[in-house]
Structure formats: structure tokens, C-alpha cells
């Protein structure tokens, strides 16, 4: 009857561990927390919840485990921080003074690059023409390239206006670098918006067609859902 499962067949050992994990219960939450702890500690880059779930055994709830972990590390020497929709472990900022040794000399950003970065962060999604309008000067290719290369900005959707210009938005790396959970946490964002300084206001005499205004409506949406 079982003659076909001859002992010399290589089916045996591997056949045993055919993953049918759905048969097993997910590990207890404390164990899941440990797993998230290990994964986040091991990675320099923020890890998405989806990635956590993919790496943990079947049935684990990475989102919940990371919340437990975040609580556990409150007030400690390292923190569990949220970056966009990802999570990372970072040293507490008040302990930066201990780390001179680890500090890496970062390339000094030019004033133009810093301003361009700020404009993109606060006005995103924003076109090159709009950046130039705000700064009153041409944005050099090198400036944008540098920010793209640093992965602090990336291309966003195209504008649905004539010429369909590309827009720029900031990335998760940007948020990670500046310790921001979302672009909404940008310093002073609310005040700037309240003062109307984030509106794109066309110069008088140049009427902006309705559909272009609509675009701006979309733009504010990005931050509006606070």
C-alpha cells in the first residue's frame, strides 16, 4: 500500500515541513513584540507593517506588536519611531551628544538646495515652475538632482495642467532624516497655512483657469486630513 513511499525517496524530511502554518496559532503577542523588536533593531531603514507581517510567522499582527513595543521604549535610550507608514528604532535625540563618534559628515547642502527642499516639503506636490516662482530664481538642475540623489525628494503625480508638468514631493527618507512621522508634522506648517503663505497666489492680471485651481485643492488635501 505504501510501497511508493520507498524509504530511499528524497520526499521524506522535506515533505514533513511543508508549510501549513495556518494550522498553527499565531505566537502570543509578547512573542510577536520580541520579533518586531528584533526586526526593527536589525534594520537601519524603517520597516513597513506589511514587511513586518511578511517576515513574522503567519497570523502575526505587526501593527499591534509595534504599538506595544513603542510603549515599551518610551523614555529609553532608543525609541521606536514612526516614519510615514514604516517603523524604526532610533537613539533618543537628547543623547546625541554621546555619539560624536558615530556622526557622519554629511555633504553640506547649498542654500539653494535647502530652500528648494523646504519649498517642496511645505508646498508638495509642487512643480519646478512653482518653486521658481517662490524663490524668484531659476532652479538649477544640479539642485534638484542633488535632492533626488539624496532620496529626500521624488517625482510625484503630473499636474493635470497644460504641459502636464511633473511635481516633486518629499520621501520617507526625508521624514526619517528629520524625525518626522508625516509631512503634516513639518514645523510651523499650520501657521504658514493660516497666514495664507502656502497658497499659490497668481500674480494679479494673470487669471488662473478654474481647473488649475482645482489642482491646488488636491494639493492641500495632502495635508488637510489632519
Amino acid at each position: 500500500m505504501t510501497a511508493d513511499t520507498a524509504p530511499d525517496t528524497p520526499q521524506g524530511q522535506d515533505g514533513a515541513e511543508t508549510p501549513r502554518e495556518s494550522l498553527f496559532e499565531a505566537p502570543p503577542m509578547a512573542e510577536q513584540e520580541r520579533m518586531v523588536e528584533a526586526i526593527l533593531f536589525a534594520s537601519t531603514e524603517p520597516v513597513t507593517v506589511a514587511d513586518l507581517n511578511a517576515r513574522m510567522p503567519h497570523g502575526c499582527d505587526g501593527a499591534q506588536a509595534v504599538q506595544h513595543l513603542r510603549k515599551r521604549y518610551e523614555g529609553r535610550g532608543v525609541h521606536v519611531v514612526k516614519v510615514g507608514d514604516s517603523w524604526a528604532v532610533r537613539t533618543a535625540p537628547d543623547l546625541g551628544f554621546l555619539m560624536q563618534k558615530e556622526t557622519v559628515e554629511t555633504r553640506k547642502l547649498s542654500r539653494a538646495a535647502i530652500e528648494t527642499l523646504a519649498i517642496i516639503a511645505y508646498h508638495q506636490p509642487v512643480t519646478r515652475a512653482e518653486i521658481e516662482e517662490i524663490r524668484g530664481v531659476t532652479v538649477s538642475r544640479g539642485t534638484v538632482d542633488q535632492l533626488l540623489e539624496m532620496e529626500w525628494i521624488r517625482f510625484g503625480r503630473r499636474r493635470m495642467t497644460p504641459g502636464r508638468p511633473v511635481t516633486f514631493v518629499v520621501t520617507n527618507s526625508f521624514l526619517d532624516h528629520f524625525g518626522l512621522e508625516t509631512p503634516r508634522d513639518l514645523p510651523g506648517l499650520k501657521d504658514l497655512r493660516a497666514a495664507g503663505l502656502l497658497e499659490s497666489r497668481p500674480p494679479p492680471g494673470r487669471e488662473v483657469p478654474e481647473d488649475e485651481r482645482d489642482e491646488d485643492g488636491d494639493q492641500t488635501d495632502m495635508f488637510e486630513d489632519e
Partner: protein
Amino acid sequence: MDEKDLFEEDDISVAERLAAEALIVDVEGFEGPLDLLLTLSRTQKVDLRRVSILKLAEQYLAFVERAKKLRIELAADYLVMAAWLAFLKSRLLLPPDPSEEGPSGEELAAHLAFQLERLQAMRDAAARLMARDQKGRDFFSRGVPEQVERVRKVTYSATLLDLMQAYARIRTKDEFRPFVLDRDNVFTMEQALDHMRGMIGFAGSWMELSSYMPTGWDAHPMRRRSVTAATFAASLELAKEGKLEIRQSETFAPIELRRRDTRDDR
């Protein structure tokens, strides 16, 4: 120096004049006319919202004038701005002409003020951003990230339909198949000749062709056809060699063979 006179006429302080001179020297350092205007507006020592655009326009025009006298080449956009500010100045000074189209001097001035305020706001925002705790300076990620081993597992998919289609393909269409002989079901003429040569010596009387066929080839229709054809072809060959006689009484009647006894061939 006449340019000095120009400034004196405008009744500006020594400090302002020095600042303006510094601006000229530093013209390369400005990031465009708006940047220059923003810097000039600081000399007014008022809130950006209450800056006098008229005065600013005059300051700017004086700057450009001075630069020209010093034979400093200004980029085109500085000159475009100068022209625009001269126009703005005239609009602000002259009573509005109702017949004239376009925005009023006040509207234009308000927009310029907005642009300056916005640029300043963005500069402040940039400064606040850069003053934040930064990764690699104030906070740090793991010094020795553990290597995440990437295990690539390839699974192959195939459905029962794929399997059936593959099999059907093999069993039916041969268009892509190089020619090979299905030896199982083919009895070659060579085999038939060998077989018949062994038998022919005993065939003194007429015997049906089928009796010359090897046993075990009649069960399968394909094999039966093959062996029949091969045996018949072999008998023709033997007849040609003069070793065999063939006869058939009528169409579709059994074919009969016998040894041809002209000479003892043994």
C-alpha cells in the same frame, strides 16, 4: 562721487549706504532679484507686512543704477525686475487712470509684498527644518544592521489543464517534432526480409502472405498494418530476386506465396 549724491538725495543713512555698497560687492551672492529685494527690505527695519513697496522699488532701482555705474554686469532678470519696478513705481505715484486696463499699482504692490513674505517664510521654514534633530547628527540608527538574508524561493506553477494540454500536444500534433521512428509499432522491411528468408525454404506450396508474418504483431492495429506492409514489400523484393512467386486470384483476394524452384538456392 555722483552715485553718492544720488543716495544722499534720497536721504538715506550712512548705514544704509554702506549696506547698499556691500550689496553691490556681493551681487554674485544673491539668488535672484527677489532675494535682493528681500535683503533690501530689511533695511526698512519694519515688519515685512508693512514694508513700503514704493521705497523698496526706489532702493532697488538705485542699486541697479549703481551697479551700472560700477560697470557690474547684472543678469537679465535683475534688469527685467528693475523695469517692472519702475513701472510699478509710476503706477503707485500717478493717480489711477480709469481707462487703463490691468491691475492697479496697489494690487501689484500687494502681490510683491506677498511674494517677499512667502519667500521669507520659506527661508524661516528651511531654517527650522535644518534645526531639527537630524539622523546621523542628533539621533542614530543601528550601527551594525544585521544582514537580512534574501532567500529567493521560486515556486513553479502548473495547472492540471497545463498538464493535459501538454500531454494532448504530445499525443496529437507533431508539427514541432523532429522525425523519429516509433520503432515499437513499426516492422521494417529489413526485419520482414530477415524473417521471410528464414521461412521461405520450407514454403514449397502456396501459402497466404499473412502466414509469413511474425507472431505477436496482429493484436495492435497499427502494428498489424505495419507488419503487413513490410511483409508484402519484402515479398516483392524476394520475388524480384527470383526467390519467390506471388499470386492473387482476384482483387482483394488473399495474396499467396511460394518458393520458386528454379534452382536450389540453399
